[in-house]
């Protein structure tokens, strides 16, 4: 540690004002604060500070995402070998998935952090950690077969136009990862929906080559619900074996990389709630709003499979749980007042189910619901703040 500190101290002068590498000051600063807690002391104001900072906050979210990632990697391998009808060991399955997912992570981080570093340097501020989470979310919410160049383009678009133009981390209106996904969804719809994108049927770096079995169909459970001719749909996996609610909960089903396992997501949710980084109010009300809306459709809905899809299955299949736990609770784009969080969460849940049931085009509504409510979050807050102001005015008048 001492040697590392000495090394940092030795190269530091080059990056400071007047040094020959001054251009890379922000980058250096980013690495220095990554290595060592800054020893800056307070000049005015409180003399002691809570040990939390934005790095710690972001790293906790990443840790919370790891179960979903690990499971997602395994599931990518599992679906692949299931489609091929091959029996392989646990580790072969996992390694196949890990190798398939890793390039997505590398591209997402590489492009996003690259832009982040450049912008920080141009603006002369510290590198902000926000993208550490966004960059981790992006690989988890795209289909495994999304071409890497598309991920790169979409990530660049989201970071520049949804974040940096607004002023960087903390200033954005929309969730960055969801903008990336929305960009992919609308720009390259054939790669983001349908029956062929959710399972990798080709090989990965030469691993796992083979031909798919005859019974194979890559439709996701929600895809099956959306296209079902009858109101009572029997969900099946990719080789036409029936699956149940429990299968959906555990998550060995086709879908975006990290969204399939409600179990892994709930482990992450527990960590986010214990560390109090995510608001339990938002998280709870998304589930409550979704369940309630689905119940309404179950009872009075139109005669479609989506409307009669049981409310508990709505919460487990598709991206609902992932969105509720990791996306809706993004503090920057969510409502910021305590009352507002209840309303915001409940509306996301309800809206996601409405889109699933009533919109014939999209089997999944979570992404659009969250993005829609991102727009309305400031409006919700506005009315909560306004009520505080009115209370104060009223008090002044009655006195």
């Amino acid at each position, binding site marked *: 540690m001492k040697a590392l500190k000495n090394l940092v101290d030795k190269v530091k002068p080059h990056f400071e004002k007047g040094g020959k590498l001054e251009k890379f000051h922000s980058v250096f600063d980013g690495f220095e604060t990554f*290595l060592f807690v800054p020893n800056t002391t307070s000049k005015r104001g409180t003399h002691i500070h809570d040990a939390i900072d934005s790095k710690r906050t972001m790293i906790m979210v990443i840790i919370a995402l790891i179960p979903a990632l690990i499971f997602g990697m395994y599931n990518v391998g599992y679906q692949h070998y299931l489609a091929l009808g091959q029996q392989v060991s646990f580790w072969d399955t996992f390694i196949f998935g890990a190798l398939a997912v890793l390039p997505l992570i590398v591209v997402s981080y590489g492009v996003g952090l690259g832009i982040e570093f450049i912008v920080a340097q141009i603006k002369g501020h510290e590198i902000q950690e926000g993208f550490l989470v966004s960059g981790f979310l992006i690989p988890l919410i795209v289909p495994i077969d999304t071409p890497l160049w598309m991920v790169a383009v979409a990530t660049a678009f989201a970071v520049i136009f949804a974040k940096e133009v607004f*002023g960087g981390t903390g200033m954005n209106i929309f969730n960055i990862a969801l903008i990336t996904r929305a960009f992919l969804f609308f720009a390259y719809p054939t790669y983001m929906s349908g029956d062929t994108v959710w399972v990798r049927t080709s090989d990965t770096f030469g691993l796992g080559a083979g031909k798919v079995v005859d019974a194979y169909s890559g439709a996701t459970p929600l895809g099956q619900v959306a296209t079902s001719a009858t109101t009572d749909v029997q969900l099946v996996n990719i080789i036409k074996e029936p699956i149940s609610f429990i299968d959906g909960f555990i998550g060995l089903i086709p879908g975006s990389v990290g969204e399939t396992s409600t179990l892994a997501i709930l482990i992450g949710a527990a960590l986010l709630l214990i560390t109090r980084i995510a608001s339990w109010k938002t998280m709870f009300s998304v589930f409550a709003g979704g369940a309630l809306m689905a119940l309404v459709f179950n009872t009075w809905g139109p005669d479609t499979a989506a409307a009669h899809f049981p409310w508990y299955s709505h919460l487990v299949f598709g991206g609902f749980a992932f969105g509720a736990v990791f996306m809706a609770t993004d503090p920057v784009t969510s409502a910021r007042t*305590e009352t507002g969080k209840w309303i915001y969460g409940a509306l996301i849940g309800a809206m996601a189910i409405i889109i699933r049931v009533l919109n014939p085009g999209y089997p999944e509504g979570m992404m659009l619901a969250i993005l829609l409510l991102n727009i309305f979050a400031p409006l919700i807050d506005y009315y909560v703040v306004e009520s505080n102001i009115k209370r104060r005015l009223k008090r002044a008048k009655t006195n």
Partner: protein
Amino acid sequence: MANLIKSTRGLDIAISGAADKVLHSYVLSDVVAIVPDHYHAITPKMLVKEGDVVKAGTPVFYNKAVESMKFVSPVSGKVLAVNRGERRKILSITIERDKETVYETFKTASFDTLKGEDVKAALLAAGLWLYIKQRPYDVIANPEIAPKAIFISAFDSAPLAPSSEFVLSKQMDDFQKGLDALAKLTTGKVHLGVRNVTKLYEGLKNVEINHYQGPHPIGNVGVQINKINPVNKGEVVWTIHAHDVLFIGRLFNKGIVDLKRKVALTGPEVNSPAYYETITGCQIDKLILGKVTSNVTHRYICGNVLTGSKVAGKNYLDPYSTQITVIKEGNDVHELFGWAMPRFNKFSTSGTYFTGIMQKVFGVKHFDFDARIMGGKRAIIMSGEYDKVLPMDILPEFLIKAMIAGNIDKMEALGAYEIAPEDVALCEFVCTSKLPLQQIVRDSLDLMRKELE
């Protein structure tokens, strides 16, 4: 119990070094100083010059804006120097004190016959007015505008704060007289906020006593005002620290300005934290030297760790401070990968550290603190952090944002009249984005005052 007001929002920081209830003998440096910068928003006009002989209570300068508002010498002696800085700004007035203090006498008519105007004139002339502050703006009260009420908090809930019961005991005559004098200044009530059920405050007259329960900042007078009689636009409330009421009491009891006070020497780096009797303007070194740990770089703080000001040993005790805190500076600490380490000895209100488990399961009472900010400054990211530590009917995040934007109408609407920098000190402590909230509030209140007065 009459008027018990409870609050659950707030935070008691687990830091070691509270003062034992032991009073050490009178300590005072040979040279005492008056520093105009200790009084916020005052332009001093000198009344003495180098070499003048002054008594305790002799005016040294007055406030340019309110000529009757005098600032007096706390000791008797000879004016050593009037130190000036850039553009002849007065930095400090140093006075070499006599061995025996000679007091200026302030004669008043019989106390019972005094009217509010007389009390006010006496306080202004005796240099005690500066202890009365006003909301809005948290500045020395404008004597021209009558307050709707006067608030005194008889307990300080800040980290390691001195115990008011200990400080006030044996001085209740002066305290009561001070309250009597304050009662004459307002047509409204004088509110005294009390935490513990003690016999000490029983039988006090001319005040309305309210009991409070909860974590810091419940002892902040701003929170108590918000709970009982909030400040609306166009209204003024005066506040005074309980310990400073004693000075007013002494003026009317004895006819002298006696600024002796019990100051608590506290903090994790003090060997045996205790109380010391001293006087405003005493050199800090005199109070601290030999009483703190060695081998670390210290930070001396006049006041508590949240709202106090950083001072050097050569500086002087400011008139509002009732405690001195000594902590580690910490600028020589370089923690590797601190953001990822468990850091069991660190205190945090978030669940990202083990603070809660250490406190509840292992019974840890004190954590390791130093003056580091522990992170980089960011835009506001987390929501709801401030609300948890500000027990007022205010939306702090939105108020702060209005302040950063300099939007005076919004600040007014969101409750800027009710708030003082000290009220957001805990918000600043817990802030993930490490924003200087007290500074933001102070600057905004000054801006509002400039624009609206």
